[in-house]
């Protein structure tokens, strides 16, 4: 029993206003406080980002040095992941990634980065921590559901981690998990019917999706119900809008994948044929499925989620970048209203473009044509967002703080990602580029130097609020320049390789097809070296992140002189967030307003004419 429970008389009224001192478990583990849940999501998500990155580094080694044992840690890897993923080389040195191992690492890299890294950090962590503060709420509408969301997510993490250690290894059918491959994989007589990579993957995904659904209901309800007095819709910071639309995407796009996940689970555990076609022959033998199912059905259900999902990946990032740009250019966002409009159009259109991932399935000219048109249409709001952010820089007195460096780099990087998507939108071009490294380059530019840079920007921006300490500037710059240079070193050559025809799933770096791709195969080495150096560039960040918690420079309540409400709290904010009643009087970006006393006017500051009545709080306010 916790001390808190003991010190309270049993007849204590549950609804009193006393501040309970929560015990260790309630404060740090089973917390219902949105900030703690945000931090839990954030640290778990960052850890998974690192894990996913390591999987990728092993794959990159293999691509540059096919058939060679991973140096230094090969033996360790083989000991951990077992003989289905690693084998000794000809000389008996352990640690050569097998084809199965490569597929497994690839599938898990994609799954982990998307569903266990970016979404938990960009959406769940920042959303949980920042959104209630920004709208002046004391917590989420449903704190206990919020906690349930995190623990549901945690269970899904366990499923994914455990799946590496079952016989046969983790899932190997790609993050898209296309059947019939994903139906056949790990379903032999030797595999346990449940404890096998692919089944654990599907089960983990069902939990992950449930966590997202619980989270998104909470986000939307919070933004609608708990805005502080005066926080009208058009006074919401852009980040809140971004999270609002993202939550809707998750709410409506994820359930069909959950349905698909349940069906795949039925296929795997109960032998149904939702996705297994009639007359399937594997290795020359007929399979035990009754058939009649449709692999294409899975693709439809998967991409019905997964296209909106790519906007789930990017919109919170754009939101964070918008906040940071406004604050560091000391200038209102250019075209705030147009951006809000654009993000809604984007959200809507993202539901009707999914089959541009399926041009190769032969849907017919009419259907392909439809999706081609909608896909081209969706680039319009995307361009509006990027252009508005670019124009926001114009004429600003830019402070190149750490968050701002990442935010500025985000713009051209996201730009490259978006622009390279447009050729893919066209059926005729995509038939050639589909499943090549070009596509890998395209989406990594959007999510890696795009969203991940936005995440870094957000970490540098809000870290002071969460911990009360600033991150170190020098280490930050080291981190930034290293990341920017090497990340381009990895992803830019992908366009060249892809256009030359390098397929995205060759496990040997293309050695087998060397005749075809000779002119570009040499890039493999360059890209892999860049990947390792990018890894090295994260070391200053990791050090900075851990060291500054206790040793960083102390942060004031509003270290960036920002206007939005989250800076109107003590640092770090206590349980319940605010020490005063919050009333919002103005829009989110009143920077450099002509005639104002300072170059920023917080949203909570009452208009001048009212100052006389509110003299008392205003005298107290400048103290910080």
């Amino acid at each position, binding site marked *: 029993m916790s001390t808190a429970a003991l010190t309270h008389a049993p007849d204590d009224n549950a609804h009193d206003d006393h501040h309970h001192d929560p015990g260790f478990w309630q404060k740090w583990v089973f917390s219902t406080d949105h900030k703690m849940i945000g931090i839990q999501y954030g640290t778990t998500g960052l850890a998974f980002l690192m894990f996913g990155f390591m999987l990728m580094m092993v794959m990159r080694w293999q691509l540059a040095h096919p058939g060679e044992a991973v140096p230094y840690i090969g033996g360790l890897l083989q000991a951990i992941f077992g003989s289905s993923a690693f084998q000794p080389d000809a000389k008996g040195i352990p640690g050569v990634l097998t084809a199965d191992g490569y597929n497994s690492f690839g599938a898990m890299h994609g799954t982990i980065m998307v569903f266990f890294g970016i979404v938990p950090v960009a959406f769940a962590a920042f959303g949980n921590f920042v959104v209630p503060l920004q709208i002046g709420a004391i917590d989420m509408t449903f704190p206990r559901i919020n906690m349930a969301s995190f623990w549901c997510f945690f269970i899904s993490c366990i499923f994914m981690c455990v799946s590496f250690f079952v016989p046969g290894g983790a899932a190997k059918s790609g993050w898209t998990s296309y059947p019939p491959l994903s139906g056949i994989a790990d379903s032999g007589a030797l595999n346990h019917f449940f404890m096998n990579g692919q089944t654990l993957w599907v089960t983990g995904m069902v939990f992950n999706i449930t966590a997202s659904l619980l989270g998104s209901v909470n986000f939307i309800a919070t933004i609608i119900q*708990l805005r502080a007095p005066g926080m009208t819709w058009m006074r919401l910071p852009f980040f809140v809008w971004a999270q609002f639309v993202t939550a809707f995407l998750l709410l*409506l796009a994820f359930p069909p994948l959950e*349905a698909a996940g349940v069906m795949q689970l039925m296929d795997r555990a109960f032998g149904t*044929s939702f996705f297994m076609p009639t007359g399937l022959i594997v290795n020359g033998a007929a399979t035990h499925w009754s058939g009649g199912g449709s692999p294409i059905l899975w693709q*439809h259900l998967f991409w019905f989620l997964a296209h909106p999902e790519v906007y789930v990946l990017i919109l919170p990032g754009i939101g964070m970048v918008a906040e940071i740009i406004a604050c560091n250019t000391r200038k209102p966002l250019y075209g705030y209203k147009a951006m809000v409009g654009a993000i809604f159009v984007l959200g809507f259109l993202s539901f009707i473009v999914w089959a541009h991932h399926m041009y190769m399935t032969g849907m017919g000219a009419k259907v392909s044509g439809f999706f081609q048109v909608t896909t081209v249409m969706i680039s319009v709001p995307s361009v509006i967002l990027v252009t508005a952010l670019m124009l926001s820089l114009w004429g600003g007195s830019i402070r190149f703080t750490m968050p701002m460096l990442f935010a500025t780099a985000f713009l051209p990087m996201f730009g490259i990602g978006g622009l390279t998507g447009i050729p893919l939108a066209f059926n005729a071009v995509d038939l050639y580029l589909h499943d090549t490294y070009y596509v890998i380059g395209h989406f990594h530019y959007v999510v890696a130097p795009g969203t991940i840079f936005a995440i870094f920007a957000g970490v540098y921006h809000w870290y002071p609020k969460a911990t009360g300490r600033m991150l170190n500037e020098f280490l930050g710059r080291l981190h930034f320049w290293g990341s920017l240079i090497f990340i381009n070193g990895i992803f830019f050559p992908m366009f060249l390789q892809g256009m030359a025809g390098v397929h995205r799933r060759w496990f040997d770096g293309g050695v087998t097809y060397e005749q075809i791709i000779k002119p570009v195969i040499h890039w493999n080495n360059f890209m892999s070296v860049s990947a390792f150096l990018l890894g090295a560039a994260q070391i200053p960040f990791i050090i900075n992140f851990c060291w500054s918690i206790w040793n960083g420079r102390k942060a004031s309540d509003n270290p960036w002189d920002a206007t939005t409400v989250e800076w109107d709290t003590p640092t770090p904010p206590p349980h319940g967030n605010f020490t005063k009643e919050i009333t919002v009087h103005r829009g989110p970006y009143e920077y450099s307003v002509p005639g104002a006393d300072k170059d920023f006017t917080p949203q909570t500051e009452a208009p001048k004419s009212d100052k006389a009545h509110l003299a008392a709080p205003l005298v107290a306010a400048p103290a910080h």
Partner: protein
Amino acid sequence: MQIPHEVTARPDTGLYNAKLGIWLFLASEVMLFGGLFSAYIFLRMGAEDGYWPHGLLNVPVGAGNTAILIASSVTVVLAWASLKMRKFSQYKLWMGISILCGALFLIVKLAYEWPQKFEHFGAFIKKDAIEHYEKYLGNHHLKEKGLPPRVEISGHLHEVEIAADPAEKEKLEVFLKQHDLEAKPDEHDAKLQIVCSEKKDKDGKREGIRPGVAEDLEKVPGVKLIAFELGLDPINAAPDNPESDKPHFLYKGPTETPGKIERKDVEFYSSFAPKHSSYFAVYFTITGLHGLHVLAGVLIMLYFWLPIEGGANMFKRNPEHLANRVEVVGLFWHFVDLVWIFVFPIFYLL
């Protein structure tokens, strides 16, 4: 710390938190079942001729269950209205009825509808053997009438005929014993020819052999299935009877008319389990998921009905809060009801 608008509506949105929450949740539920229903459409449109069965479900039972659910949707509204009028005993009554209806629905599913499927046997006939089974399939007759052909023979599995390798006899005997199977060896044959069926029950009624057991039997080393002997479903018993052209409205179980199918002519056989066909796959997935929703609804309603903190005891402290809770579960219950209104026609009638 008290979250605002937990009980009273926020003036500009007109909603209290949980009501908004449940509407959002239901929106996602619509997409969840939407995904499953689109799978139904996709699979049905893609099914080859004859592979989408009709008339296998008991329409009157399904209709009865539909009525039960609709009634409970009404009573849950009455329960909420009683709370709004602060009439506690009426609330207990109406809520109690709603809970009973939900439970009854589940009992019908669990005790009758689902288990029955696992007793029923169906075998899809290989394309080149279809002609051979014309007497059960009646395809000539159907062709004349311009109806889609039949490819499956179904009924109750009475006996299976197997050939066993004498060398592996022990494993077979263990299996027979485990599953309480009766074996009648055919002495005349050089090989060990056996006919298996499950033992008769106390009343001497023949139980037949469950299809799942037949599948397992086939996996026993040295065992080869030769033929199935079954009591045919009415359609296969009298395939040319015009009455069988359309699915029967009133469900008719398998007859005692014997039929025999050779294992070598069978493409795929099983009970009417999920793996049997796309039809049963979607049937079990959708009704299963729907059943889970019913179960959840019943448990939550029970929670609000029982005299506990957070449940009916709330009436004294904060009746409006209890009314809100009942309204929210009521909305959920209407949704569950609505899903069934779609499930019933697409599986039972169409």
